[in-house]
């Protein structure tokens, strides 16, 4: 081999300087990039919230938005810096508390007077749209928001229960049993999983019409459940696949039947999977729009997505404080679920693809 580069010829000092510079500059640049591209996502949510707690007829809310931002942005940046430079847990908490207190105080001083909950009066006043537009001009007689809320909850919950029940059973069977045509069934399911159900909306509408399920919550629940199935069956099958065979085999040698082994021994092992599938199904049911818009007409059958849609259609130009408040009310359940169950959901979307 040829002679090596003489080490003395290398300018180690310069290399170290460059590395140092690259590390700090590189990381800051990447984080700055992430902040820049994420602002367009965070800001509108914040804007909606701001409108909902500050809009009156007049338009102070943009002042509120920028004042609040001028407090919150430094607070968040300050917290980030604190995190980077403090390893000590107690100091971190103290620092965070101080920043939060300062931000709260500043917010109170700057925008406190402009905040109010008047826009949330739709929660106790069922005739809100008529009140705003005048009964004569409102195009539709609106039901109370609680009717829509109850329908949404019923739809999402029954849908979740159904999806869980059906996909757990099927997932277990596909994971653990051999039967003629199993390969074909799984491949077919895979095609359905990738196949876009949205294209079937016309025939589904007709089937509902012919079977008398049109404009019933039951019909919508069945449809949405089925469309979720290929995905959730695969997820559940994946979780069952991960349960060791030994557990089941030893349960069966201990005298349990196959069904008892499933209920007592295997099912408890896939609780995480069921939680994930359940949360995901709930969020899907809660947000569903296209199918409910197509399959439900009667105002007493409205779910939250239809309620907010018609509210915004009707009074967006007149009073968008109320629209924003309804939107905040509607997004809250899925938002909270998302925050608390994030880990499962991310796992899920991966599991779903890997099959």
């Amino acid at each position: 081999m040829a002679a090596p580069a003489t080490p003395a010829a290398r300018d180690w000092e310069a290399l170290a300087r460059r590395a140092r510079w690259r590390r700090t500059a590189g990381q800051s640049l990447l984080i700055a990039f992430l902040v820049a591209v994420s602002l367009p996502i965070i800001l509108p949510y914040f804007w909606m919230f701001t409108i909902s707690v500050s809009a009156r007829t007049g338009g102070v809310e943009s002042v509120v938005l920028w004042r609040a931002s001028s407090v919150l942005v430094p607070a968040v940046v300050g917290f980030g810096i604190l995190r980077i430079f403090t390893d000590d847990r107690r100091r971190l908490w103290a620092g965070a508390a101080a920043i939060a207190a300062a931000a709260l105080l500043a917010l109170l001083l700057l925008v406190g007077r402009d905040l109010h909950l008047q826009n949330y009066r739709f929660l106790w006043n069922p005739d809100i749209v008529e009140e705003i537009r005048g009964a004569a001009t409102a195009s539709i007689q609106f039901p109370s928001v609680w009717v829509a809320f109850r329908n949404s909850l019923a739809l999402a919950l029954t849908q979740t229960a159904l999806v869980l029940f059906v996909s757990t059973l099927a997932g277990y069977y596909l994971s653990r049993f051999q039967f003629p045509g199993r390969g074909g069934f799984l491949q077919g399911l895979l095609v359905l999983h990738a196949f876009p159900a949205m294209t079937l909306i016309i025939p589904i509408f007709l089937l509902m019409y012919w079977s008398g399920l049109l404009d019933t919550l039951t019909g919508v629940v069945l449809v949405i459940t089925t469309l979720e199935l290929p995905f959730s069956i695969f997820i559940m099958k994946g979780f069952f696949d991960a349960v060791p065979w030994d557990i089941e085999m030893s349960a069966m040698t201990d005298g349990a039947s196959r069904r008892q082994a499933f209920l007592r021994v295997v099912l408890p092992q896939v609780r995480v999977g069921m939680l994930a599938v359940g949360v995901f199904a709930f969020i899907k049911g809660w947000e569903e729009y296209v199918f409910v818009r197509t399959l439900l007409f009667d105002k007493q059958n409205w779910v939250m997505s239809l309620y907010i849609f018609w509210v915004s259609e009707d009074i967006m130009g007149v009073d968008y404080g109320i629209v924003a408040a309804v939107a905040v009310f509607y997004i809250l359940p899925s938002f909270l679920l998302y925050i608390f169950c994030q880990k499962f959901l991310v796992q899920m979307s991966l599991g779903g693809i890997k099959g």
Partner: protein
Amino acid sequence: MARIELRKIRKQWGEVVAVEDLDLVIEDGEFVAILGPSGCGKSTTLFMLAGIYMPTAGELLFDGIPVNEVEAKDRNVGIVFQSYALYPHLDVRRNIMFPLKFKGVPKAEAARRAVEAARLVHVEELLDRMPSQLSGGQQQRVALARALVKEPQLLLLDEPLSNLDATLRLSMRTEIKRLQRHTGVTTVLVTHDQIEATTMADRIVCMRKGRIEQIGTPEDLYERPDSLFVASFIGAPPINLLPGEARDGRLAVGGTELELLGAAAGRVILGIRPEALRPGEGGLPATVLDVEPMGRETLFLLETPLGQLRALLSGATAPYGAGDRTAFTFDPEDSILFSESSERRLPDVHVRLPA
């Protein structure tokens, strides 16, 4: 080639200290093995030499110049990983040429050097294969070629033999040693296998819990271990260790007393290697408890007044059977004493069987 110096090197992950105050000089062209049980910080040390990890404190010098912050890509070191880490999408030739791509070596010359490096490790006929088509031993050789092709000033080997089967390991040991002699590159080998370390390296650095226990030649570590840890880590079958009490020129061990040569007092631990024990008239009376044939040698488990001892005798056929009574003796120079409290060796202290 380079002379490597570590001065009070320390590596911490949050609160966890992986390597603590490491002082070590590796001479130009030397072959050094870092030996220790898993989790002792040996791989962390290696990765700091490579520039993959940055030391938390201390100074790392290449030829007297600090390189702590120089990036891995600028250090001109070659490394062979335990898993070989061949790039799966590149064939053998491109794998070997990969490092040259970033050194601005012209394509034709890079190709020539790749062939040269492949020839050096006897894989020239595999140049057009993909890594997935190679056996473990072949991947290992390719990884070596890739590490050597850039003519590194430092070659790092991270447990390079642990994924190979026993016969292959033997031949690769010789092979790597030959390559190191041939290229004269400063080499650091990390291993948990004492045989690898003793057979390949000029010097061994024995580490435990992030600290250096002893630095020395294989003979040093075997014959004059500085500590109880080194004594018990090196040597197979392991050294016999017997607790005792030194007083007035005598050492009380088990149910008997030995004559103390040199000054020692208090609680000590006596170490005698199995291969230092041999049958001898007038020695320790011993009852053979068990016989383990080990091929060319035979291991005896003995009950003696000192306690239970392992003795290793050469010869495939055992001169004694279980239950036989005989006598064993050893040379005073083969006995090692350690202080029980500090676990360090008591230099120039030995014991002799009473006449």
